[in-house]
């Protein structure tokens, strides 16, 4: 079974009421808040961090593996500015306060990203992507009909996006199984044996292609067509409120 770690885009809202908000309103707010987070003063940053942290509480706790990987990345990104300052020292301790603030900025961005992904279904974002592409392509539809071309999956980028994210944990799962199957037969990837690793890579690619083929057939059997009908949810009062807040944050950043 795939590890939770494998899918950072998993929809797991827990008891969070954010799941009921409109995905576009949340996406706009995420863009605004990350933009402000990277440039704001320490006071506002601490405020945004505290709010984000408070909103995280109703969500299921992220796997410790995910959190430690993120923390490691954040710490590295923050401390890198102090490494080898060029005067012969290994590390410049004077950069630590700035690094701390930078780490807090990155971690705040992570918190709001997690809030977004954990409370938003990929299919909701995908449906809006498809609707946007269809709107752009509408003026050219007459010409496409004249050429009688079959609509491909590229005409439904939302489904393509959903499938890519759906496949990420499955590919990790296939990789894990292929790796274990190789290990029990004496192939250790850690030994850097290129020829044997290539054999396993071939298995992984073939397995993934076969799985993709089975998925495509299953989609067809379940009535999928790239011209599927999409029902987009309308903005409610709370969504407009979030949108106004996002615009206010953008405005705050500009001044």
């Amino acid at each position, binding site marked *: 079974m795939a590890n939770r770690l494998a899918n950072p885009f998993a929809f797991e809202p827990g008891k969070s009421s954010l799941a009921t908000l409109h995905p576009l309103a949340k996406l706009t707010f995420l863009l605004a808040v990350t933009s402000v987070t990277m440039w704001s003063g320490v006071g506002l940053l601490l405020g945004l961090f505290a709010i984000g942290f408070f909103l995280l509480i109703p969500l299921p706790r992220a796997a410790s593996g995910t959190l430690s990987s993120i923390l490691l990345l954040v710490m590295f990104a923050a401390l890198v500015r102090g490494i080898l300052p060029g005067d012969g020292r290994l590390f410049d301790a004077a950069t630590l306060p700035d690094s701390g603030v930078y780490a807090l900025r990155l971690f705040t961005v992570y918190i709001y990203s997690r809030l977004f992904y954990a409370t938003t279904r990929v299919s909701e974002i995908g449906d809006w992507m498809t609707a946007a592409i269809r709107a752009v392509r509408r003026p050219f539809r007459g010409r496409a009909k004249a050429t009688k071309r079959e609509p491909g999956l590229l005409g439904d980028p939302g489904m393509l996006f959903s499938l890519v994210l759906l496949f990420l944990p499955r590919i990790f799962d296939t990789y894990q199984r292929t790796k274990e199957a190789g290990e029990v037969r004496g192939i250790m990837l850690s030994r850097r044996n290129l020829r044997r690793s290539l054999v396993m890579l071939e298995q992984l690619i073939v397995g993934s292609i076969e799985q993709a083929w089975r998925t495509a057939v299953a989609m067809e*059997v379940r009535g999928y067509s790239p011209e599927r*009908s999409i029902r987009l949810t309308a903005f409610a009062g709370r969504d407009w409120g979030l949108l106004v807040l996002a615009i206010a944050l953008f405005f705050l950043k500009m001044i």
Partner: protein
Amino acid sequence: MSELFRAEALEHLFPDGTIGLDHVSLAIDEGELILVAGKNGAGKSLLLRHFIGLSKPNAGTIYYRGEPIASQIPLIRREVGYVFQDTEAQIFGQTVEEDLAFGPANLGIQGKELEGAVRSALRDAHLEGMSERRPLTLSGGEKRRLAIAGVLAMKPRCVILDEPFANLDFPSVQEIIEVLKTLRSEGKTLILLTHEIEKVFSLASRLVILDRGKIVFDAPPSLAKKEDFLQSGLVCPYRECYPWQID
């Protein structure tokens, strides 16, 4: 009972010349529970893939409700559900509920009707209380029931299940049998492809045994003789007996 499927002199040759189906003729009526049995490679899945238009025969014709299937594919997609042996490949949703909505939404069902279809599929597949679960966290038996529910949400007249008991423990098999009984009571046509015939033998109204691409038996299960099972390899590996007889 009206006729649902009819295959006439169906032949399928693989690219290497191996015979997949050899002059197969078969009619399936609505409301039947047909057990299509045969050992591995007998042609069970291949035959039913032809029925839903996923494979093309080298010779012969298939009819769905009296019309050649080439013109009936959209209707077949709407009315015939297919549960594959590899259940994970047919799960598309991030949650159970989202996956169940995938099929009916593709058929243009929306709003309250969609919610109702999802709810009734959850109930029929005995998955109540799991609507918010992530499919990857389900057990093998639950995933199999989710795959069945995904098909049921499309309100099919006929459900084809390819090896529905593969890799399942006894409690999971029992759950699947309960689901089949529910569907049978609703009058749906059920076609089960399996070599584990002992698990559903008593439920079936008809047994079709395939051997090397040929139909070697087609009658109610009670008419099957020991020789029919022996000839097609459907015997207990430890002794030559009916596989469902336990001393």
